[in-house]
Structures are given as C-alpha cells and as structure tokens.
C-alpha cells in the first residue's frame, strides 16, 4: 500500500511486519523515531508477541539482543553514531557468536566535535565487525532492505546492519509502498536458529578459542559473509518476484553502460547523484553512477563488472579515514586492482553538510576533464581551514578547532546550504 510517511515510521512498520520478538531501545538521534514508533506499536498491541525493552545504553541494547537471539528470538535494535561506538564491543560479539540480529543504523557523524547530523562515519567504523552492511538509497529501499535483512541474517546466521542516512532518510516524508503482512510472512519464515540456549539440548555458546582454532573461526566468519554475495542477489530477485519491485542486491548501476566517468556512492546521496548525472547527460557528458547497496560483504566482482569499463571513477563518500582519505574508495580501488583506472575520492557531506547538485556537478565535470585531484573535500571552506592552520602554527595554545571555526562562521541555523 502506498503511504506518505516519515522514513523512521516506514522502517518501524517494516520491522514490525517481520514479526520481531525482542526489540531493545535506547534513544539516540537520528534513529530515535524508529524505536519510538515500534514502542508505540507494542504498547498499543498492534505489534504482539514482542518484548519491547527500554535499556540503559546502546551497549545494553545490543547485549539484550544478543541474549534474546541466542535464546531463539528474532531480535532487533537500532542506533547511530556514538551509540554504535558505545556498543562496538557487542557489535563484534554478535557477529562472532553468529547471532542473526538486525540493526538499523540511522547514519550520523561521530564526534568530537559532537555532531548530530548525517554522514556514514559510524557504519564505516564497524565495517570490519563481521556484520553485513546494507545501505538504503531511499526510504522504499530502507523498508525493503529490512525485510530482506531478516531473511539474510537468519539464513546465514550473521547479523545485518541496515544503514539509513540519518535525517535525510529517517526524517524525510516520502512515498513508500508498504508491503502487507501476508507478503512479508511469505518472504520471511519464522526464525530457525542454528544454535539456541535450551535446557532440552544444552550447549555452551561463546567459548574461549585460542591460537589453535581462532584463525579457522575467523575464516569461517569471512566465509559465511562471503556467502551473502550470492544470497543477497538471490533474495533481491525473489523479493522482486514477490513484491514487484527491484530493491536490494549488491550494486545498482545507473546510466553506466557507456559512461566514461562513473560515480560510486553509498546511500541516499545516490539520488542527488542521479539527478546530476541526468543533467550532465543532457549536456552530453558520458557519465553514470553505481550505488553500492552491500558494502559488507564488499561486492568486488559485481562492482568491478559494473565500473571497469569507465575511464575514471569518482567515489563520493560520507566518511573519512583520517590519515589516508577515503574508506569506500580504498575498497573500490581493490575491486579495480590491475585495471589501471584512476579512482578519485571525494569526501562529502560530513556532519550533515548538504551535498548539493551544484557542488557535485562541479567535481564530476572536473573529473570528466581529468582535472580532479586524488582526494577532494567537497565544499571545503579553504579560507577557514587556512586561517586555522595559520593560527595553529603560530600559537601553541590555539584553542579548540571546532569552536574557532564556528566563531568564524557564525550561527549554524541561519545558513541554508
């Protein structure tokens, strides 16, 4: 059924359709609306057979989910940013134990300086944690990915993060085709755990593993996640058959076949990118884009197949590996190993800075003319950083950087872009 709803509400409804049994909630912007909505559904008994637990921290949220999942319940939680970092230990633990928990990340920057706005640094910090990471381009895809994620997680016994850009998607009202309970029930069977805490058949879960087996355990974690590279497209195909729309999968190419310049990105920014691609195509520029849905496992083969024919690749990424540059682009380069194609890193949208068509258009054109640098910070205020660097170099006690810059820029809310 088509609905005009807030992204968080849509995600909450999708999660509810998957019949979760234990939901752990801890508020953190911008995922809060999701668990609020779920809590309301449970309280109002619209969602039954579900325990909604208000925990005292994100660490507890995922920990409760771990306990519930190990006891055979379908467990769900959501978090963002600092919250994801606070639960980091449990994030690794859930995957290490092979517990098919689904967690929504309302992507948000990580401080300091504290920043509540969108980028994808949080998910990136957990990219090696053994979770499958799926990035939603739209709220429709956020809905669909959650449904697929439950199935994916449980089939592989691997936890899945569905990454949804904070505010941009979570707080956006847009049209969503919400599936029916019958459709979801047909797609997501009840949870058959691979291991379960049950007095009838007791097991020890979470043994200490020494050097004699640790490598094997880690290999198997890798192996299981790599299996997702065939299961994800398979589920997307099955999903399309049952729900009548393409959603999920590994990568989504857009006008890429004959593109000389290809833009790679994760999440909602792909929408803006597509608009710019269309504009540039109208101008006769052979450009296209590829949206990467599955960042973990990284679909190196699928991505290579989608982009290797281009002359150059521009990776727009909402995160920064301080000291090297791009995170996604490093993986893209690996996918293109030996192909001899330049991969440009464009760090964009950090801490909620708007990624505008104008700015994208500018870097795409530059790239198309082979004028783009290896690493670019989109819309970086060079004058500001230049002055701050000068200050840093001239004074030992130069004061806090963030506050210095803010003082220079004035109030945040009086600017539009």
């Amino acid at each position: 059924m088509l609905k005009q709803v807030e992204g968080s509400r849509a995600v909450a409804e999708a999660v509810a359709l998957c019949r979760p049994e234990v939901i752990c909630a801890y508020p953190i912007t911008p995922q809060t609306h999701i668990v609020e909505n779920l809590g309301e559904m449970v309280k109002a008994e619209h969602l039954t057979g579900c325990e909604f637990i208000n925990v005292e921290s994100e660490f507890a949220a995922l920990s409760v989910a771990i306990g519930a999942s190990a006891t055979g319940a379908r467990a769900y939680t959501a978090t963002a940013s600092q919250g994801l970092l606070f639960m980091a230990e449990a994030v690794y633990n859930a995957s290490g134990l092979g517990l098919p928990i689904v967690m929504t990340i309302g992507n948000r920057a990580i401080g300091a300086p504290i920043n509540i706005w969108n980028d994808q640094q949080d998910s990136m910090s957990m990219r090696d944690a053994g979770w499958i990471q799926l990035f939603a381009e739209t709220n429709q895809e956020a809905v669909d990915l959650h449904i697929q994620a439950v199935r994916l997680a449980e089939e592989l016994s691997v936890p899945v993060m569905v990454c949804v850009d904070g505010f941009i998607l979570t707080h956006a009202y847009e049209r969503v085709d919400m599936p029916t309970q019958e459709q979801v029930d047909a797609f997501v069977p009840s949870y058959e755990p691979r291991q379960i805490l049950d007095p009838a058949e007791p097991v020890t879960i979470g043994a200490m593993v020494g050097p004699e087996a640790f490598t094997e355990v880690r290999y198997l974690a890798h192996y299981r996640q790599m299996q997702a590279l065939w299961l994800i497209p398979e589920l997307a195909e099955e999903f399309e058959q049952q729900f009548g729309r393409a959603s999920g999968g590994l990568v989504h190419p857009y006008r890429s076949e004959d593109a000389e310049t290809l833009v790679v990105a994760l999440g909602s920014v792909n929408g803006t990118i597509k608009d710019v691609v269309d504009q540039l195509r109208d101008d006769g520029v052979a450009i296209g884009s590829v949206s990467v849905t599955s960042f973990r496992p990284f679909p190196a083969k699928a991505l290579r197949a989608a982009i290797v024919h281009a002359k150059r690749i521009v990776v727009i990424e909402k995160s920064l590996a301080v000291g090297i540059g791009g995170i996604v682009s490093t993986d893209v380069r690996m996918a293109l190993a030996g192909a001899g194609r330049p991969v440009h890193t464009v760090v964009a949208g950090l801490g909620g800075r708007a990624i505008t068509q104008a700015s994208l258009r500018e870097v795409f054109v530059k790239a198309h003319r082979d004028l783009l640098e290896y690493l670019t910070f989109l819309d970086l205020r060079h004058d500001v950083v230049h002055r701050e660097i000068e200050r840093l170099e001239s004074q030992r006690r130069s004061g806090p950087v963030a506050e210095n810059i803010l003082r220079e820029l004035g109030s945040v809310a009086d600017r539009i872009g």
Partner: protein
Amino acid sequence: MRKPYAITLDVGSSLANLTGSWRTQRPVYVDRLPPCNATCAAGEDIQQWLFHAEEGNYETAWRSLVRDNPLAAIMGRVCYHPCEGACNRGQLDESVGINAVERFLGDEANRYGWEFEPVTAESGKRVLVIGSGPAGLSAAYHLRRLGNAVVILEAETSSGGMMRYGIPQYRLPRITIDQDVQRILAMGVELRLDHRVDDIEQTMRDGNFDACFLGVGSQLGKRAYIPAGDARRITDAVTVLHRMAGDEKPMLGRRVVVYGGGNTAVDVARTARRLGAEDSIIVYRRTRDRMPAHRDEVREAIEEGVKLKWLSTIAAADDELITVEKMELDEKGFPQPTGELETMEADALVLALGQDVDLELLSKLPDLNIVHGAVAVDGAQMTSREGVFAGGDMIGGERTVTAAVGHGKKAARAIDAYLRGVAFKQKPKHQMATYDLLNTWYYADAPKTVRPKLDIIRRQSTFDEVIGSLDEATALYEARRCMSCGNCFECDTCYGVCPDNAVIKLGPGKRFEFNYDYCKGCGLCVAECPCGAIRMEREPN
C-alpha cells in the same frame, strides 16, 4: 543442531581434560582411632554404636555395642567411663555422655527383651570358665559366640561376682545384673552356682574341657596393722559390701569411719549413710584430688553427706575412739607423717585399703607363674599353664568391671584361636584421632545432657539407684553429640567442598572415593573434613 565451529561447544566436554595430572599430593581417606575407643578397657567401638544410636536405631546400636561387651546395662552404670575423659568433644564444650547412652541402650535391650544372636556354628570345643564376674561372663559370652560350649563354675550362690558382692545396689540394681547375665545364659552358656573349684586340672578333666578361663575377683580385703583395743569394731570394705548382698545387713552404727581413698571406700561410706549412719567419714592420707576414687563418686558421696578427712592416717583404734595422724605431702606428693595426732569417735572402722584375689584354687597348679599376687599372663591372656587363661582382678592391673570385660573378650578370642590351632593376633591400632585433626566448626554447640539424679533424701536413706536413665530424646541428643573423630560419618563435606567434583559419593554406608583423574590435590577436603578422616599424602611417583 549444526553448531558454529569452536565458539559453541557440547556440554560437559571438559571431562576429557584430566586435571589430576596437576597434583603433587593426594588426599586419602583414613580411619583413625577415636580417643574414646582407644581408652575403653572393654575394647568397645564406642563411636560405631553411637553412630547407630544417632540415627535412633537403638537395637542396631546395642547389637554393635554387645559385639564387644555383653553387659551394656551394667556397663552403663558402673563403668568409670575413661572414654568420656578422653573424648575430644570435651575440648570443644563437654564430652559426649557415652556412659549414659550405653546405659540407655542396655536398658532398652532389657526393656524390649533383645536377645543375642543365636550361635550359628558349634566348634565342638568345651571351655571352662571359673567365676561369673565380669571377666568370666565376658569370656563365656565371647567364647559362646564363637561356637564353643561354655560352663561357668561360680563359688557363690548368685552370679555376678564382685558386681554383685562389691558394688552397692544404689549404683547397680541387682535386677540389672540378673538381666544381663540371663541373656548370656540364654545363648547356651551353662552356669553352675555354689561350685567352688579347688583343682582346676581335675575339673577340666572331669568336664572334658579343652581350655579354661580363670576370672576370679578380688574378694579379700587388705588389712593394715592398726593397734586396736576392740577388733570387733574393725572390719573391711569387701566384707561390708559382700554382706550387703545377703539378707542380714551389716550393723555399722551411728558413726562410721572408712579408711581409704578408692572407689570401694566411697562405696562403703555411702552404704553406711544408707544404713543409718549419721556420720560417715572417709579418712584418706592424701588430698582429694589425689584420691583414686572417681570424681563423680566422690562428689555424689559429699552430696549425700559423707565427710572426708584429708591428709590423715589412722594410727590406732580403741574402744570408740580412733586416733588420726595428720599428714603432709612432700615434694613428690607423697604423704609424710607430721606426728600431730587427734582423736575421733567411731562406732565402726571400715578398712578400704585395697583387695586381693584368693588364689587358693591355684594351689593344685604349683608351677603356675604368679607375680606380686597376680597371675602372670602373656599377650594372649594365657597363664604359664597351657590352655589355662586368666583375666579380671586375677591378673592385676586396673581392677574395674570394664577392664575385666576387656580381659574376658580378649581371652575368649585368644582361647578360640588356641583351640583352632591358630595364632592369636590383634588388629593393629589406627593412628589416634587427636583434637587438632578435627575441624570443629562443623559441630553445633551442644552442651552435655545431665542425667537425672535421685533426690538427696532418698539417696541418704534408701538403696534406690542414684543415677537415672536418659529418656529417648536426650539419649539421642547425647549420641548425636559424637563428633565421629577420625572416622567418616558421611557428612558429605568432602563431596561438597571439592571444587573439581573429584569426590565420588558411593551412597549411604559406602562412604566416598577420590576420583584422582580430576583431583588437583588442593587439600580442601582434608582441611574441611570435620572428623579428620582424610589425610594428604605425597603423590606416588
């Protein structure tokens, strides 16, 4: 379930890890000799019968008791219970009232008419027992249990020997003697009263006996030379007590002086009170704490109005006056005369200076080895004459009912071995379960139960039994105060405190075993065993 590799494991799989290899020393279950058993002259396994009594299983307890001593009811009255003095519990609060429980069990047996188990196999041997005192009865009983035909020849008209003729009935009612003796006779032991033996060898030949046990009591009072004007007024304790068994009670008078410090002296003094003496005075040459008489007896005597005169010897007895010389103790604790004299009135002077055995019956065995008035025996209670064994007062040493019973038992086992032509061997004794080996934390504080006593007026005028019996509840309580020193009582503490579950519980009555596959040798079981029944040993190489 296809479980994830390595991180999910099948339960209990650590059994594959034999942690016993960590051990440098190992716990071993031991049985140690409890002090009560060690000191029991009758060789009773006190702890064992208390164990059964703790469960309220009194018949089993009694049967356990009479394996060593058939005279439970008697013993519960007349034994001076050195076991209680040795009892480790005495160091914790108060010793276990072993004697009271023994009496309770003996009385239960008499009350319910429990009989000894019937003899199952006859040996075909005949043994002569001379004397039906505690030594003779004990020997007869044990010999009979082992399948031998036994005949007791008793010179007196009643059985019991010195128990009947030497112990006042306020301490040992005659019915109790009769009951305990009757039970032995019921096993098929033959008792012939009024049958004084003069010629042992002849008697043995006549009766076709294969062996003989001599158990004659010390019935002759020792006399001391006391210058006396009127010898009528001087008598000895044995005679007084012996006459108490007859119909004609001795006439001692209003004021009686008893000379001596042993149990017999006390018995006589207390008897005199009961016979009407207003003053019954014990004259003893040393101090009260050096009196050989049992403390309880002395205390009871004093309660009953018996007076004691310490550090005094009787120098002379004339008419109604007795001359007493004051003594003082020298550095070694021996009394020395001071030359200071005083006189006291007395209607009678009873000498209680010790007893001798009448060895007249041995006159036909001139080569029998006698040392200092006692028949010499070897480690198997055999005299220098083959086939002739002896015990009780005859062989000297401690002259108590309990010791006599012990002699009788040992002699009986030795005689049985002799008759079967095998060497008599005694079981080696275990190491003593001393107090320091116990972990007394585990025992609740539980003070001893005081046995009821007859009220003082009746004690001064009648021969009713002074000390009462425990009722069932208090007997049970008292039995349960036993700490089972040195021997496992299956308290499960080792089983519980082992962090490695390396103690295997074998089930009721079967105790425990160590599982050395897993025992790491921490020693917790040893440290926590309440009764010291586990020992740490070096791990064998």
